[in-house]
Protein backbone atom coordinates (compact mmCIF):
# COMPACT_ATOMS: atom_id res chain seq x y z
CA UNK A 1 0.00 0.00 0.00
CA UNK A 2 1.41 3.37 -0.92
CA UNK A 3 0.43 6.98 -0.48
CA UNK A 4 2.41 7.99 -3.54
CA UNK A 5 0.37 6.62 -6.41
CA UNK A 6 2.05 8.91 -8.94
CA UNK A 7 5.49 7.62 -7.99
CA UNK A 8 4.24 4.07 -8.17
CA UNK A 9 2.82 4.77 -11.63
CA UNK A 10 6.28 5.67 -12.86
CA UNK A 11 6.57 9.45 -12.57
CA UNK A 12 10.09 10.30 -11.45
CA UNK A 13 9.86 13.99 -10.62
CA UNK A 14 6.25 14.73 -9.84
CA UNK A 15 4.41 17.46 -7.93
CA UNK A 16 2.82 16.84 -4.52
CA UNK A 17 -0.31 14.70 -4.49
CA UNK A 18 -3.32 17.00 -4.82
CA UNK A 19 -6.83 16.28 -3.64
CA UNK A 20 -10.07 17.46 -2.08
CA UNK A 21 -11.13 17.73 1.53
CA UNK A 22 -14.91 18.20 1.45
CA UNK A 23 -16.08 19.45 4.86
CA UNK A 24 -19.80 18.71 4.63
CA UNK A 25 -20.49 20.38 7.98
CA UNK A 26 -20.25 23.81 6.30
CA UNK A 27 -21.95 22.93 2.99
CA UNK A 28 -24.95 25.17 2.38
CA UNK A 29 -26.36 23.16 -0.52
CA UNK A 30 -26.02 25.98 -3.05
CA UNK A 31 -24.84 23.59 -5.83
CA UNK A 32 -22.37 26.13 -7.22
CA UNK A 33 -19.94 23.20 -7.42
CA UNK A 34 -22.28 21.24 -9.71
CA UNK A 35 -22.75 24.24 -12.00
CA UNK A 36 -19.08 25.28 -12.10
CA UNK A 37 -18.00 21.72 -12.89
CA UNK A 38 -20.45 21.36 -15.75
CA UNK A 39 -19.55 24.74 -17.18
CA UNK A 40 -15.78 24.33 -17.04
CA UNK A 41 -15.77 20.77 -18.39
CA UNK A 42 -18.62 21.25 -20.89
CA UNK A 43 -20.43 18.30 -19.35
CA UNK A 44 -23.79 17.73 -21.08
CA UNK A 45 -27.17 18.13 -19.38
CA UNK A 46 -28.36 14.84 -17.98
CA UNK A 47 -31.86 15.23 -16.60
CA UNK A 48 -34.11 18.05 -15.48
CA UNK A 49 -36.81 16.08 -13.67
CA UNK A 50 -37.76 16.66 -10.03
CA UNK A 51 -36.84 13.69 -7.87
CA UNK A 52 -38.67 14.37 -4.64
CA UNK A 53 -35.41 13.75 -2.75
CA UNK A 54 -35.38 17.00 -0.76
CA UNK A 55 -33.44 19.56 -2.83
CA UNK A 56 -31.46 16.89 -4.69
CA UNK A 57 -32.70 16.69 -8.27
CA UNK A 58 -29.32 15.56 -9.58
CA UNK A 59 -29.82 12.19 -7.84
CA UNK A 60 -26.29 10.82 -8.14
CA UNK A 61 -22.87 10.88 -9.75
CA UNK A 62 -22.62 9.66 -13.31
CA UNK A 63 -20.98 10.09 -16.67
CA UNK A 64 -22.47 13.57 -16.97
CA UNK A 65 -22.55 14.53 -13.29
CA UNK A 66 -19.17 14.85 -11.65
CA UNK A 67 -20.20 16.79 -8.52
CA UNK A 68 -23.43 15.82 -6.80
CA UNK A 69 -24.91 17.58 -3.76
CA UNK A 70 -26.87 15.25 -1.46
CA UNK A 71 -29.60 16.47 0.88
CA UNK A 72 -30.82 14.44 3.85
CA UNK A 73 -33.56 15.69 6.18
CA UNK A 74 -33.47 13.95 9.54
CA UNK A 75 -36.09 14.38 12.26
CA UNK A 76 -34.43 15.37 15.55
CA UNK A 77 -36.28 14.25 18.68
CA UNK A 78 -34.61 15.91 21.70
CA UNK A 79 -33.15 19.39 21.31
CA UNK A 80 -30.18 20.23 23.55
CA UNK A 81 -29.40 23.84 24.53
CA UNK A 82 -27.29 25.39 21.84
CA UNK A 83 -23.61 24.67 21.45
CA UNK A 84 -21.80 26.33 18.54
CA UNK A 85 -22.15 23.24 16.36
CA UNK A 86 -25.79 22.57 17.24
CA UNK A 87 -27.89 25.72 17.07
CA UNK A 88 -31.49 25.40 18.28
CA UNK A 89 -33.84 24.77 15.36
CA UNK A 90 -35.96 27.64 14.14
CA UNK A 91 -39.68 27.43 14.79
CA UNK A 92 -40.40 26.81 11.13
CA UNK A 93 -38.13 23.73 11.00
CA UNK A 94 -38.75 22.26 14.45
CA UNK A 95 -36.76 19.13 15.04
CA UNK A 96 -35.12 18.70 11.62
CA UNK A 97 -31.41 18.32 10.94
CA UNK A 98 -30.52 18.94 7.31
CA UNK A 99 -27.37 17.28 6.05
CA UNK A 100 -25.84 18.54 2.82
CA UNK A 101 -22.78 17.07 1.13
CA UNK A 102 -21.05 17.50 -2.19
CA UNK A 103 -20.02 14.08 -3.52
CA UNK A 104 -17.27 13.54 -6.08
CA UNK A 105 -14.91 10.93 -7.51
CA UNK A 106 -12.60 9.78 -4.73
CA UNK A 107 -9.48 9.43 -6.90
CA UNK A 108 -8.60 6.35 -4.86
CA UNK A 109 -5.02 5.47 -3.99
CA UNK A 110 -5.94 1.91 -4.96
CA UNK A 111 -8.29 2.59 -7.82
CA UNK A 112 -10.48 -0.24 -9.10
CA UNK A 113 -11.57 1.57 -12.27
CA UNK A 114 -7.94 2.19 -13.15
CA UNK A 115 -6.97 -1.42 -12.43
CA UNK A 116 -9.65 -3.02 -14.60
CA UNK A 117 -9.50 -0.71 -17.61
CA UNK A 118 -8.34 -2.96 -20.49
CA UNK A 119 -7.37 -0.25 -22.96
CA UNK A 120 -5.27 1.89 -20.65
CA UNK A 121 -7.69 4.78 -21.19
CA UNK A 122 -7.82 5.33 -17.43
CA UNK A 123 -4.44 6.44 -16.14
CA UNK A 124 -2.77 7.96 -13.05
CA UNK A 125 -1.63 11.55 -13.48
CA UNK A 126 1.47 13.17 -12.02
CA UNK A 127 -0.80 14.75 -9.36
CA UNK A 128 -1.92 11.32 -8.17
CA UNK A 129 -5.39 11.72 -9.67
CA UNK A 130 -7.21 9.27 -11.99
CA UNK A 131 -8.31 10.48 -15.43
CA UNK A 132 -9.98 8.92 -18.53
CA UNK A 133 -8.44 9.58 -21.95
CA UNK A 134 -11.44 10.31 -24.17
CA UNK A 135 -9.61 9.40 -27.37
CA UNK A 136 -8.76 5.89 -26.14
CA UNK A 137 -11.81 4.67 -24.24
CA UNK A 138 -13.85 2.21 -26.30
CA UNK A 139 -16.76 2.04 -23.88
CA UNK A 140 -16.27 -1.53 -22.68
CA UNK A 141 -17.92 -0.49 -19.43
CA UNK A 142 -15.75 -2.58 -17.13
CA UNK A 143 -14.92 0.42 -14.92
CA UNK A 144 -18.60 0.97 -14.16
CA UNK A 145 -19.29 -2.02 -11.86
CA UNK A 146 -15.71 -2.03 -10.58
CA UNK A 147 -16.01 1.28 -8.71
CA UNK A 148 -17.02 0.63 -5.08
CA UNK A 149 -18.68 4.08 -4.90
CA UNK A 150 -20.69 3.98 -8.12
CA UNK A 151 -18.93 7.06 -9.52
CA UNK A 152 -17.95 6.35 -13.12
CA UNK A 153 -20.50 5.53 -15.80
CA UNK A 154 -20.82 5.18 -19.55
CA UNK A 155 -22.44 8.12 -21.32
CA UNK A 156 -25.19 7.07 -23.71
CA UNK A 157 -24.58 9.89 -26.17
CA UNK A 158 -20.99 8.96 -27.00
CA UNK A 159 -20.67 5.43 -25.58
CA UNK A 160 -17.64 6.29 -23.46
CA UNK A 161 -16.81 6.42 -19.76
CA UNK A 162 -16.50 9.82 -18.10
CA UNK A 163 -15.84 11.10 -14.59
CA UNK A 164 -14.28 13.89 -12.58
CA UNK A 165 -10.78 14.76 -13.77
CA UNK A 166 -9.99 16.90 -10.71
CA UNK A 167 -9.77 19.57 -13.42
CA UNK A 168 -6.50 18.13 -14.74
CA UNK A 169 -6.25 20.98 -17.23
CA UNK A 170 -6.58 23.60 -14.48
CA UNK A 171 -4.03 21.83 -12.25
CA UNK A 172 -1.52 21.94 -15.08
CA UNK A 173 -1.95 25.71 -15.18
CA UNK A 174 -1.46 26.04 -11.43
CA UNK A 175 -5.15 26.74 -10.80
CA UNK A 176 -7.59 25.04 -8.43
CA UNK A 177 -10.48 22.90 -9.72
CA UNK A 178 -13.65 24.72 -10.76
CA UNK A 179 -15.78 23.33 -7.93
CA UNK A 180 -13.31 24.39 -5.23
CA UNK A 181 -13.05 27.85 -6.77
CA UNK A 182 -16.82 28.28 -6.89
CA UNK A 183 -17.62 26.97 -3.41
CA UNK A 184 -18.67 30.02 -1.34
CA UNK A 185 -18.11 28.50 2.11
CA UNK A 186 -14.87 26.62 1.32
CA UNK A 187 -16.63 23.37 2.10
CA UNK A 188 -14.64 22.05 -0.86
CA UNK A 189 -10.99 22.57 -0.04
CA UNK A 190 -8.27 21.84 -2.54
CA UNK A 191 -4.57 21.45 -1.95
CA UNK A 192 -1.75 19.00 -1.20
CA UNK A 193 -3.26 15.90 0.38
CA UNK A 194 -0.97 15.94 3.42
CA UNK A 195 -2.03 19.45 4.35
CA UNK A 196 -5.69 18.63 3.85
CA UNK A 197 -5.42 15.60 6.12
CA UNK A 198 -3.86 17.68 8.90
CA UNK A 199 -6.54 20.32 8.57
CA UNK A 200 -9.29 17.71 8.58
CA UNK A 201 -7.99 16.03 11.74
CA UNK A 202 -8.16 19.34 13.59
CA UNK A 203 -11.63 20.13 12.25
CA UNK A 204 -13.17 16.78 13.19
CA UNK A 205 -11.66 17.03 16.68
CA UNK A 206 -13.28 20.47 17.07
CA UNK A 207 -16.67 19.14 15.99
CA UNK A 208 -16.52 16.16 18.30
CA UNK A 209 -15.52 18.37 21.22
CA UNK A 210 -18.54 20.57 20.46
CA UNK A 211 -20.91 17.63 20.77
CA UNK A 212 -21.17 16.28 17.22
CA UNK A 213 -20.57 12.68 18.21
CA UNK A 214 -21.10 11.25 14.75
CA UNK A 215 -18.69 13.62 13.02
CA UNK A 216 -16.20 11.42 11.20
CA UNK A 217 -13.60 11.51 8.49
CA UNK A 218 -14.32 9.24 5.54
CA UNK A 219 -11.59 7.89 3.25
CA UNK A 220 -8.90 9.91 5.00
CA UNK A 221 -7.05 6.88 6.37
CA UNK A 222 -4.33 5.36 4.12
CA UNK A 223 -4.93 2.03 5.88
CA UNK A 224 -8.52 1.73 4.64
CA UNK A 225 -9.90 -0.43 1.84
CA UNK A 226 -8.86 1.88 -1.01
CA UNK A 227 -5.57 3.10 0.48
CA UNK A 228 -7.24 6.37 1.34
CA UNK A 229 -8.95 8.72 -1.11
CA UNK A 230 -7.41 11.60 -3.00
CA UNK A 231 -10.77 13.15 -2.23
CA UNK A 232 -11.95 12.54 1.33
CA UNK A 233 -14.82 13.85 3.43
CA UNK A 234 -15.94 15.03 6.84
CA UNK A 235 -19.37 13.53 7.44
CA UNK A 236 -21.84 14.20 10.24
CA UNK A 237 -23.43 10.74 10.13
CA UNK A 238 -22.75 7.22 8.89
CA UNK A 239 -21.56 6.99 5.26
CA UNK A 240 -24.57 5.00 4.09
CA UNK A 241 -26.88 7.87 5.09
CA UNK A 242 -25.17 9.87 2.33
CA UNK A 243 -25.29 6.95 -0.12
CA UNK A 244 -21.63 6.05 0.46
CA UNK A 245 -20.47 2.47 1.15
CA UNK A 246 -19.64 1.91 4.85
CA UNK A 247 -16.48 -0.12 4.25
CA UNK A 248 -15.39 0.03 0.62
CA UNK A 249 -12.56 -2.25 -0.45
CA UNK A 250 -10.96 -2.14 -3.89
CA UNK A 251 -11.87 -5.31 -5.76
CA UNK A 252 -8.29 -5.75 -6.98
CA UNK A 253 -7.18 -6.83 -3.50
CA UNK A 254 -8.80 -10.24 -4.13
CA UNK A 255 -7.61 -10.56 -7.73
CA UNK A 256 -4.45 -12.61 -7.04
CA UNK A 257 -6.58 -15.27 -5.37
CA UNK A 258 -9.08 -15.08 -8.22
CA UNK A 259 -6.34 -15.77 -10.74
CA UNK A 260 -5.17 -18.70 -8.63
CA UNK A 261 -8.61 -20.32 -8.77
CA UNK A 262 -8.89 -19.59 -12.51
CA UNK A 263 -5.50 -21.26 -13.05
CA UNK A 264 -6.55 -24.35 -11.10
CA UNK A 265 -9.87 -24.61 -12.93
CA UNK A 266 -8.19 -24.11 -16.31
CA UNK A 267 -5.53 -26.68 -15.45
CA UNK A 268 -8.29 -29.10 -14.55
CA UNK A 269 -9.94 -28.59 -17.93
CA UNK A 270 -6.61 -29.00 -19.72
CA UNK A 271 -5.87 -32.17 -17.77
CA UNK A 272 -9.23 -33.49 -18.91
CA UNK A 273 -8.09 -33.11 -22.52
CA UNK A 274 -5.06 -35.23 -21.74
CA UNK A 275 -7.15 -37.84 -19.95
CA UNK A 276 -9.62 -37.99 -22.83
CA UNK A 277 -6.76 -38.32 -25.28
CA UNK A 278 -5.21 -41.19 -23.39
CA UNK A 279 -8.38 -43.31 -23.59
CA UNK A 280 -7.68 -44.73 -27.03
CA UNK A 281 -10.63 -45.83 -29.10
CA UNK A 282 -11.41 -49.52 -28.72
Amino acid at each position, binding site marked *: MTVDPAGRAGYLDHPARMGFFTDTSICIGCKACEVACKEWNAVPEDGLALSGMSYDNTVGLGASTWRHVAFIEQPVTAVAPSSPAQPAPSSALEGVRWLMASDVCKHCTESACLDVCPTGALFRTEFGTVVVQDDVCNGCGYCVPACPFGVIDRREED*GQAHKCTLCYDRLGAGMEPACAKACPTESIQFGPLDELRERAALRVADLQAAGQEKAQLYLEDPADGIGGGGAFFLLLDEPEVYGLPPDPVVTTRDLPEMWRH*VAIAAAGL*AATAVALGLARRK
Partner: protein
Amino acid sequence: MVPEAEFSSYYGRPVIKEPVWKAPDVAGYLFFGGLAGASSVLAVGAQLSGYSKLARVGKIGALGAISVSAAALVHDLGRPERFVNMLRVFKPSSPMSVGSWLLAGYGPMAGAAAVSEVTGILPRVGRAATLGAGLLGPGVATYTAALICDTAVPAWHEGYREMPYVFAGSAASAAGGLGLLAVHPADAEPARNLAVLGAAVELIAKRQLLDRLARPGEQSLAEPYQTGTTGAILRLAEFLTAGALAGAVLGRTSRTVSALSGAALVAASAMTRFGIFEAGLASARDPRYTIVAQRRRRGEE
Protein backbone atom coordinates in the same frame (compact mmCIF):
# COMPACT_ATOMS: atom_id res chain seq x y z
CA MET B 1 -38.01 -15.96 11.44
CA VAL B 2 -34.96 -13.76 11.87
CA PRO B 3 -35.77 -10.09 11.26
CA GLU B 4 -34.10 -8.30 8.37
CA ALA B 5 -31.04 -6.29 9.24
CA GLU B 6 -31.75 -2.60 9.74
CA PHE B 7 -29.78 -0.17 7.69
CA SER B 8 -29.92 3.34 6.29
CA SER B 9 -29.54 4.26 2.68
CA TYR B 10 -29.79 7.39 0.56
CA TYR B 11 -33.48 7.28 -0.44
CA GLY B 12 -33.12 3.56 -1.26
CA ARG B 13 -30.76 4.37 -4.15
CA PRO B 14 -28.11 1.87 -5.22
CA VAL B 15 -24.64 2.47 -3.78
CA ILE B 16 -22.67 1.05 -6.70
CA LYS B 17 -23.54 1.16 -10.38
CA GLU B 18 -24.80 -2.00 -12.03
CA PRO B 19 -22.94 -3.15 -15.15
CA VAL B 20 -23.96 -1.44 -18.39
CA TRP B 21 -23.44 -4.72 -20.21
CA LYS B 22 -26.44 -6.12 -22.09
CA ALA B 23 -27.48 -9.67 -21.27
CA PRO B 24 -27.65 -11.05 -24.82
CA ASP B 25 -24.14 -9.77 -25.52
CA VAL B 26 -22.21 -10.41 -22.32
CA ALA B 27 -24.14 -13.25 -20.68
CA GLY B 28 -24.30 -14.74 -24.16
CA TYR B 29 -20.51 -14.37 -24.41
CA LEU B 30 -20.02 -16.10 -21.07
CA PHE B 31 -21.86 -19.08 -22.56
CA PHE B 32 -20.39 -19.08 -26.08
CA GLY B 33 -16.86 -18.37 -24.90
CA GLY B 34 -17.02 -21.26 -22.47
CA LEU B 35 -18.50 -23.53 -25.12
CA ALA B 36 -15.73 -22.60 -27.54
CA GLY B 37 -12.86 -23.09 -25.09
CA ALA B 38 -14.13 -26.44 -23.87
CA SER B 39 -14.94 -27.61 -27.41
CA SER B 40 -11.30 -27.08 -28.31
CA VAL B 41 -10.35 -29.17 -25.29
CA LEU B 42 -12.70 -31.90 -26.50
CA ALA B 43 -11.31 -31.64 -30.03
CA VAL B 44 -7.77 -32.33 -28.80
CA GLY B 45 -8.83 -35.26 -26.64
CA ALA B 46 -10.98 -36.76 -29.37
CA GLN B 47 -8.29 -36.35 -32.01
CA LEU B 48 -5.57 -37.93 -29.88
CA SER B 49 -7.77 -40.91 -29.02
CA GLY B 50 -8.99 -41.54 -32.55
CA TYR B 51 -12.54 -40.21 -32.40
CA SER B 52 -12.27 -38.25 -35.64
CA LYS B 53 -15.97 -37.42 -36.14
CA LEU B 54 -16.12 -35.98 -32.64
CA ALA B 55 -12.89 -34.04 -33.16
CA ARG B 56 -14.41 -32.45 -36.25
CA VAL B 57 -17.53 -31.40 -34.32
CA GLY B 58 -15.35 -29.96 -31.57
CA LYS B 59 -13.29 -27.86 -33.98
CA ILE B 60 -16.22 -26.53 -35.97
CA GLY B 61 -18.21 -25.93 -32.80
CA ALA B 62 -15.31 -23.99 -31.30
CA LEU B 63 -14.97 -21.76 -34.36
CA GLY B 64 -18.69 -21.13 -34.55
CA ALA B 65 -18.96 -20.34 -30.86
CA ILE B 66 -15.93 -18.04 -30.77
CA SER B 67 -17.16 -16.16 -33.84
CA VAL B 68 -20.47 -15.47 -32.16
CA SER B 69 -18.50 -14.48 -29.05
CA ALA B 70 -16.35 -11.96 -30.89
CA ALA B 71 -19.37 -10.40 -32.57
CA ALA B 72 -21.18 -10.13 -29.25
CA LEU B 73 -18.21 -8.53 -27.49
CA VAL B 74 -17.58 -5.96 -30.20
CA HIS B 75 -21.29 -5.18 -30.38
CA ASP B 76 -21.45 -4.48 -26.64
CA LEU B 77 -18.72 -1.85 -26.74
CA GLY B 78 -19.84 1.77 -26.46
CA ARG B 79 -17.45 2.55 -29.32
CA PRO B 80 -17.28 -0.70 -31.32
CA GLU B 81 -15.00 0.81 -33.96
CA ARG B 82 -12.31 1.12 -31.27
CA PHE B 83 -12.29 -2.58 -30.37
CA VAL B 84 -8.63 -2.81 -31.37
CA ASN B 85 -7.76 -0.58 -28.39
CA MET B 86 -8.20 -3.73 -26.31
CA LEU B 87 -4.70 -4.65 -27.47
CA ARG B 88 -3.08 -1.29 -26.67
CA VAL B 89 -1.71 -2.63 -23.40
CA PHE B 90 -1.39 -5.88 -21.48
CA LYS B 91 -2.61 -5.46 -17.90
CA PRO B 92 -2.69 -8.49 -15.60
CA SER B 93 -4.73 -6.38 -13.17
CA SER B 94 -7.55 -6.39 -15.72
CA PRO B 95 -9.21 -9.74 -16.50
CA MET B 96 -10.65 -8.08 -19.59
CA SER B 97 -7.17 -7.24 -20.84
CA VAL B 98 -5.90 -10.76 -20.17
CA GLY B 99 -9.00 -12.16 -21.88
CA SER B 100 -8.59 -9.94 -24.92
CA TRP B 101 -5.06 -11.24 -25.44
CA LEU B 102 -6.21 -14.83 -24.84
CA LEU B 103 -8.90 -14.39 -27.47
CA ALA B 104 -6.45 -12.78 -29.88
CA GLY B 105 -4.35 -15.94 -29.70
CA TYR B 106 -7.13 -18.46 -29.41
CA GLY B 107 -9.45 -17.17 -32.16
CA PRO B 108 -7.08 -17.54 -35.12
CA MET B 109 -6.00 -20.98 -33.87
CA ALA B 110 -9.58 -22.18 -33.56
CA GLY B 111 -10.15 -20.82 -37.05
CA ALA B 112 -7.11 -22.53 -38.53
CA ALA B 113 -8.02 -25.82 -36.84
CA ALA B 114 -11.57 -25.79 -38.20
CA VAL B 115 -10.65 -24.63 -41.70
CA SER B 116 -7.93 -27.23 -42.02
CA GLU B 117 -10.33 -29.90 -40.79
CA VAL B 118 -13.08 -29.00 -43.22
CA THR B 119 -10.98 -28.28 -46.31
CA GLY B 120 -8.16 -30.73 -45.66
CA ILE B 121 -5.49 -28.15 -46.52
CA LEU B 122 -2.30 -27.82 -44.44
CA PRO B 123 -3.04 -30.74 -42.12
CA ARG B 124 0.12 -30.25 -40.03
CA VAL B 125 -0.76 -26.61 -39.43
CA GLY B 126 -4.27 -27.76 -38.59
CA ARG B 127 -2.97 -30.25 -36.04
CA ALA B 128 -0.74 -27.66 -34.42
CA ALA B 129 -3.61 -25.17 -34.34
CA THR B 130 -5.88 -27.78 -32.76
CA LEU B 131 -3.30 -28.33 -30.05
CA GLY B 132 -2.81 -24.59 -29.55
CA ALA B 133 -6.53 -23.96 -29.31
CA GLY B 134 -6.79 -26.82 -26.83
CA LEU B 135 -4.06 -25.22 -24.74
CA LEU B 136 -5.64 -21.74 -24.68
CA GLY B 137 -9.22 -23.01 -24.58
CA PRO B 138 -9.26 -23.67 -20.81
CA GLY B 139 -8.11 -20.10 -20.24
CA VAL B 140 -10.84 -18.74 -22.49
CA ALA B 141 -13.44 -20.82 -20.66
CA THR B 142 -12.43 -19.74 -17.14
CA TYR B 143 -11.02 -16.18 -17.22
CA THR B 144 -14.55 -14.79 -17.54
CA ALA B 145 -15.18 -15.92 -13.96
CA ALA B 146 -12.40 -13.59 -12.80
CA LEU B 147 -13.83 -10.90 -15.05
CA ILE B 148 -17.24 -10.71 -13.40
CA CYS B 149 -15.92 -11.36 -9.89
CA ASP B 150 -13.33 -8.57 -10.13
CA THR B 151 -16.01 -5.92 -9.64
CA ALA B 152 -17.86 -4.38 -6.71
CA VAL B 153 -20.98 -6.38 -7.59
CA PRO B 154 -21.68 -8.18 -4.30
CA ALA B 155 -23.23 -11.42 -5.63
CA TRP B 156 -20.31 -11.88 -8.01
CA HIS B 157 -17.37 -10.65 -5.96
CA GLU B 158 -18.17 -12.71 -2.89
CA GLY B 159 -18.40 -15.81 -5.06
CA TYR B 160 -14.92 -15.48 -6.55
CA ARG B 161 -13.57 -18.65 -4.97
CA GLU B 162 -16.09 -20.96 -6.59
CA MET B 163 -17.01 -19.12 -9.81
CA PRO B 164 -14.06 -20.39 -11.93
CA TYR B 165 -15.07 -24.00 -11.19
CA VAL B 166 -18.72 -23.28 -11.97
CA PHE B 167 -17.65 -21.77 -15.30
CA ALA B 168 -15.21 -24.58 -16.13
CA GLY B 169 -17.82 -27.21 -15.33
CA SER B 170 -20.53 -25.39 -17.23
CA ALA B 171 -18.29 -24.98 -20.28
CA ALA B 172 -17.26 -28.63 -20.20
CA SER B 173 -20.83 -29.86 -19.91
CA ALA B 174 -21.91 -27.62 -22.80
CA ALA B 175 -19.08 -28.82 -25.04
CA GLY B 176 -19.72 -32.43 -24.13
CA GLY B 177 -23.41 -31.87 -24.69
CA LEU B 178 -22.76 -30.47 -28.15
CA GLY B 179 -20.75 -33.58 -28.96
CA LEU B 180 -23.55 -35.85 -27.76
CA LEU B 181 -26.04 -33.88 -29.81
CA ALA B 182 -24.05 -33.95 -33.04
CA VAL B 183 -22.49 -37.41 -33.02
CA HIS B 184 -23.83 -40.93 -32.50
CA PRO B 185 -23.16 -42.04 -28.91
CA ALA B 186 -21.02 -44.92 -30.09
CA ASP B 187 -18.58 -42.38 -31.59
CA ALA B 188 -18.94 -39.86 -28.75
CA GLU B 189 -17.42 -41.44 -25.68
CA PRO B 190 -14.98 -38.57 -24.96
CA ALA B 191 -17.90 -36.12 -25.22
CA ARG B 192 -19.93 -38.16 -22.79
CA ASN B 193 -17.03 -38.32 -20.34
CA LEU B 194 -16.41 -34.59 -20.61
CA ALA B 195 -20.12 -33.84 -20.21
CA VAL B 196 -20.51 -36.04 -17.15
CA LEU B 197 -17.41 -34.63 -15.47
CA GLY B 198 -18.35 -31.05 -16.35
CA ALA B 199 -21.92 -31.42 -15.15
CA ALA B 200 -20.80 -32.94 -11.87
CA VAL B 201 -18.21 -30.21 -11.25
CA GLU B 202 -20.73 -27.49 -12.10
CA LEU B 203 -23.42 -28.86 -9.79
CA ILE B 204 -21.04 -29.28 -6.86
CA ALA B 205 -19.32 -25.92 -7.34
CA LYS B 206 -22.64 -24.07 -7.66
CA ARG B 207 -23.90 -25.66 -4.47
CA GLN B 208 -20.71 -24.62 -2.65
CA LEU B 209 -21.03 -21.10 -4.04
CA LEU B 210 -24.56 -20.71 -2.72
CA ASP B 211 -23.68 -22.27 0.64
CA ARG B 212 -20.87 -19.76 1.08
CA LEU B 213 -23.07 -16.79 0.13
CA ALA B 214 -25.98 -17.79 2.33
CA ARG B 215 -25.77 -16.45 5.83
CA PRO B 216 -28.51 -17.21 8.30
CA GLY B 217 -30.65 -14.23 9.15
CA GLU B 218 -28.90 -11.20 7.75
CA GLN B 219 -28.79 -10.10 4.16
CA SER B 220 -27.91 -13.26 2.29
CA LEU B 221 -26.10 -12.82 -0.99
CA ALA B 222 -27.55 -16.14 -2.12
CA GLU B 223 -30.94 -14.38 -2.38
CA PRO B 224 -30.44 -12.91 -5.87
CA TYR B 225 -29.57 -16.42 -7.09
CA GLN B 226 -32.59 -18.02 -5.49
CA THR B 227 -35.49 -15.58 -5.77
CA GLY B 228 -37.68 -14.41 -8.61
CA THR B 229 -37.37 -15.35 -12.26
CA THR B 230 -33.60 -15.67 -11.92
CA GLY B 231 -34.00 -18.22 -9.14
CA ALA B 232 -36.46 -20.20 -11.22
CA ILE B 233 -34.14 -20.24 -14.23
CA LEU B 234 -31.17 -21.37 -12.17
CA ARG B 235 -33.16 -24.12 -10.49
CA LEU B 236 -34.45 -25.31 -13.86
CA ALA B 237 -30.88 -25.32 -15.19
CA GLU B 238 -29.76 -27.42 -12.23
CA PHE B 239 -32.62 -29.86 -12.82
CA LEU B 240 -31.83 -30.12 -16.53
CA THR B 241 -28.13 -30.66 -15.82
CA ALA B 242 -28.78 -33.41 -13.32
CA GLY B 243 -31.31 -35.09 -15.58
CA ALA B 244 -29.07 -34.84 -18.61
CA LEU B 245 -26.18 -36.29 -16.62
CA ALA B 246 -28.29 -39.32 -15.84
CA GLY B 247 -29.56 -39.51 -19.40
CA ALA B 248 -26.07 -39.36 -20.88
CA VAL B 249 -24.88 -42.24 -18.72
CA LEU B 250 -27.94 -44.47 -18.59
CA GLY B 251 -29.06 -43.84 -22.16
CA ARG B 252 -25.65 -44.13 -23.76
CA THR B 253 -26.79 -46.75 -26.26
CA SER B 254 -29.74 -44.68 -27.45
CA ARG B 255 -29.19 -41.98 -30.07
CA THR B 256 -32.36 -40.17 -28.99
CA VAL B 257 -31.66 -40.12 -25.29
CA SER B 258 -28.06 -39.08 -25.84
CA ALA B 259 -29.04 -36.27 -28.17
CA LEU B 260 -31.73 -35.02 -25.80
CA SER B 261 -29.29 -35.14 -22.91
CA GLY B 262 -26.76 -33.22 -24.98
CA ALA B 263 -29.28 -30.57 -25.91
CA ALA B 264 -30.38 -30.26 -22.29
CA LEU B 265 -26.78 -29.76 -21.17
CA VAL B 266 -26.20 -27.02 -23.71
CA ALA B 267 -29.43 -25.26 -22.77
CA ALA B 268 -28.73 -25.61 -19.05
CA SER B 269 -25.26 -24.14 -19.46
CA ALA B 270 -26.69 -21.10 -21.23
CA MET B 271 -29.39 -20.67 -18.61
CA THR B 272 -26.84 -20.87 -15.81
CA ARG B 273 -24.74 -18.06 -17.32
CA PHE B 274 -27.77 -15.84 -17.87
CA GLY B 275 -28.99 -16.58 -14.34
CA ILE B 276 -25.64 -15.72 -12.77
CA PHE B 277 -25.52 -12.53 -14.85
CA GLU B 278 -28.99 -11.38 -13.79
CA ALA B 279 -28.33 -12.28 -10.14
CA GLY B 280 -25.34 -9.97 -10.20
CA LEU B 281 -27.33 -7.09 -11.65
CA ALA B 282 -30.02 -7.55 -8.98
CA SER B 283 -27.43 -7.51 -6.18
CA ALA B 284 -25.97 -4.27 -7.53
CA ARG B 285 -29.36 -2.56 -7.76
CA ASP B 286 -30.43 -3.07 -4.15
CA PRO B 287 -28.29 -1.06 -1.71
CA ARG B 288 -28.90 -3.54 1.12
CA TYR B 289 -26.52 -6.09 -0.38
CA THR B 290 -23.65 -3.60 -0.36
CA ILE B 291 -24.42 -1.81 2.89
CA VAL B 292 -25.38 -4.64 5.25
CA ALA B 293 -22.37 -6.83 4.40
CA GLN B 294 -19.96 -3.92 4.74
CA ARG B 295 -21.44 -2.77 8.04
CA ARG B 296 -21.10 -6.29 9.36
CA ARG B 297 -17.46 -6.39 8.24
CA ARG B 298 -16.77 -3.03 9.86
CA GLY B 299 -18.39 -4.20 13.07
CA GLU B 300 -16.22 -7.29 13.15
CA GLU B 301 -12.97 -5.33 13.02
